[in-house]
C-alpha cells in the first residue's frame, strides 16, 4: 500500500515538473523509439489515464518485440532464431529429444528481383513467409535467416518423419501462386537442407547450422526444388536386424507365461 502511494507520488511529481526531474519522459528522448514503433504500426501515444511507468513499459515491450522480428516478413529474425537454437541444443543434449533444423532458400530469387523489381521480390518474401508459417505447428520456430533464406526449428520431430515434413513444406510452397501485381502472379520453388541435432550430445549452434547448410548446398547443386537431410551416422540398423534383435523379447514373454507358476523361472536361449 505504501509502495503504491509512493509510486503514485513519483508519477505525479514527474508529470508536474517535466523538465527539472531526471525522471521526466521528455528528457528520456523517446522520439526515436516512438518513430520505430510507429513504423511498425504500434500505438505509441500515451493514454490519458496511463501512468508514465506503464507507458514506458509498453514502449520497452514494443522495442523488445521489434528487436526479435524481421520487419519485412514479420517472422522472427536471426537474433531470435539463434537464441531458440541455443536452447534447443540444451534440450536435445539432456533429453535426447529429436529436433530438426531446416534451412530453406528461395530458388533463383535474384532473377525475380532482376526481372520484376524489388517490390515484387519483397512481395514474394512476404508471401513465402506466410505460406511457410501456415505449414508449421505452434511449437515450431520460423525465422528469416538472411536475404531469401529462412530457417525452421522443429522440436519433437522424429527422424522417420523429418523428410516427409520437409517435403510437405517444399510442395506447399511450390503449389502456391504469388500475386505480385494485378496482372502478374509468380510461382517459386524452394530448396531445403536439414539436420538433426545429435541426440544426447552437446553440440554447438555453428556445427548444427553448418550441417544443415551443407545439405542445402546439396539440394541446390542437385537441381533445386528439393530436400536433402543430413543422415545421422548411427541407426544403420535394418528392419531385418531389428526383427532378429527383439526375438528374445517375444520368447521372454512366452517364457514368463509358461514358467509363471515356478519359483525361479529359468530360460535357456534356444
Amino acid at each position, binding site marked *: 500500500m505504501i509502495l503504491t502511494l509512493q509510486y503514485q507520488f513519483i508519477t505525479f511529481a514527474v508529470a508536474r515538473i517535466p523538465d527539472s526531474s531526471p525522471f521526466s519522459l521528455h528528457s528520456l528522448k523517446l522520439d526515436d523509439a516512438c518513430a520505430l514503433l510507429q513504423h511498425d504500426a504500434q500505438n505509441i501515444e500515451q493514454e490519458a489515464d496511463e501512468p508514465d511507468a506503464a507507458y514506458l513499459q509498453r514502449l520497452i515491450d514494443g522495442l523488445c518485440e521489434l528487436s526479435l522480428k524481421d520487419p519485412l516478413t514479420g517472422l522472427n529474425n536471426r537474433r531470435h532464431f539463434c537464441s531458440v537454437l541455443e536452447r534447443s541444443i540444451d534440450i536435445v543434449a539432456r533429453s535426447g529429444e529429436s529436433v530438426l533444423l531446416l534451412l530453406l532458400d528461395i530458388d533463383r530469387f535474384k532473377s525475380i528481383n532482376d526481372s520484376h523489381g524489388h517490390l515484387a521480390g519483397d512481395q514474394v518474401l512476404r508471401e513465402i513467409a506466410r505460406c511457410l508459417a501456415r505449414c508449421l505447428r505452434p511449437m515450431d520456430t520460423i525465422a528469416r535467416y538472411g536475404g531469401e533464406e529462412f530457417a525452421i526449428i522443429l522440436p519433437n520431430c522424429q527422424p522417420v518423419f523429418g523428410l516427409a515434413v520437409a517435403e510437405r513444406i517444399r510442395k506447399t510452397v511450390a503449389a502456391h501462386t504469388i500475386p505480385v501485381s494485378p496482372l502478374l502472379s509468380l510461382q517459386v520453388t524452394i530448396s531445403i537442407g536439414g539436420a538433426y541435432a545429435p541426440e544426447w550430445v552437446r553440440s554447438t549452434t555453428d556445427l548444427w547450422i553448418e550441417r544443415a547448410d551443407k545439405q542445402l548446398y546439396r539440394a541446390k547443386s542437385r537441381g533445386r526444388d528439393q530436400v536433402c537431410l543430413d543422415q545421422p551416422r548411427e541407426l544403420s540398423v535394418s528392419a531385418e536386424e*531389428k526383427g532378429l534383435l527383439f526375438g528374445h523379447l517375444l520368447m521372454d514373454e512366452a517364457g514368463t507365461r509358461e514358467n509363471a507358476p515356478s519359483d525361479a523361472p529359468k*530360460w535357456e536361449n534356444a
Partner: protein
Amino acid sequence: MNDVLIPAAENKNSLRLPLKPLGKVLAVTSGKGGVGKTFVSANLAAALARRGHRVLVLDADLGLANLDVVLNLHPKITLHDVFTGKARLEDAILPAPGGFSVLLAGSGMVEYSRLTTEVRDEFLRIIGSLVPRYDVVLMDTGAGISDVVLFAVSLASEVLMVATPEPTSLTDAYATIKVLVGQQLRQTVRLIVNQSTRPGSGQAITNQLQQVLDRFVATDPGHPIQLLHLGDIPVDPEVRQAIMRRQLMMQHTPDCPAGKAIAQLARTLEKTVIPKPA
C-alpha cells in the same frame, strides 16, 4: 608429474599416431543415454575399491558430465581447469565416497565436446599420466557414437557396454557395437544388462545380440566379434533411492540385490580383465 606415461611436450607428434588402447582402462559406454552408465561406473568403482584395487573414475562425458551429481560432489577444480592450464592434474583428482578417486569434467567442458586435435592430445596426456597411478581407470563416456565418445572408447582396453532390456536401448547398443567393430576393429565387447527383470535374461539378450552380430557384422570368419555377458543388475528400488538421495549405493546398501550384482561384476572383471590387487 614424474610418472607420465607419454611425454607430452617433446613427443607431441607421436600422439597423433593410430592409438593403441591403454591397459587397465575400461570404457563404460552405452548406445542410448539414461541407461545407467554413470550409476554403474560409480558403483562398480566402489566395488572394485572394496576389493583392494586403486580405482579412478574419469568423467569422459565431456559435454554432459553428471558424475558429480551422482556422487554429490562439488568440485572446485575440474578437468576443465586442467585442459585450460589453470590447474595441475593432481589438483583435479578428488577422493569420492566409496574409496576411489574421481576426475570430474566440470560444466565448462561443453566447449570441448567438439573433438579437436588439442582436446585429443590433452586427453591422451591426462589418460597417459593416470594409468601408472591406478590399477583400474573407469571412463564414464557419453552415450552414442559422437566423435568424443568414440575417441574416449578408443583409448580403452576393454569396452563395458551398458544396456537395459528395452528394444530402443538394445538397438542403440547394437548400432554402437557395429560402429566400434567397423571403426576401431574391436573384437570383444562386454555387456552389462541393467534393470534386468528376470534372472538369466541378460545372458539371453547377449546371445541374441551375438547372433545378429554374427549374421550381419562379423561376416568375415577371420575376424569374429565376441560379445561377452559381464553380468546383470536387477531392477531394485534401492537404486532409485540411492540416486534420489545422491548417495553411493555400494556404500549405503551394498547388500541389496543390485549391490550384490555389482559386487559380482567386480569379481567377474577380476577373473577376466584386471589382475587381482597385489
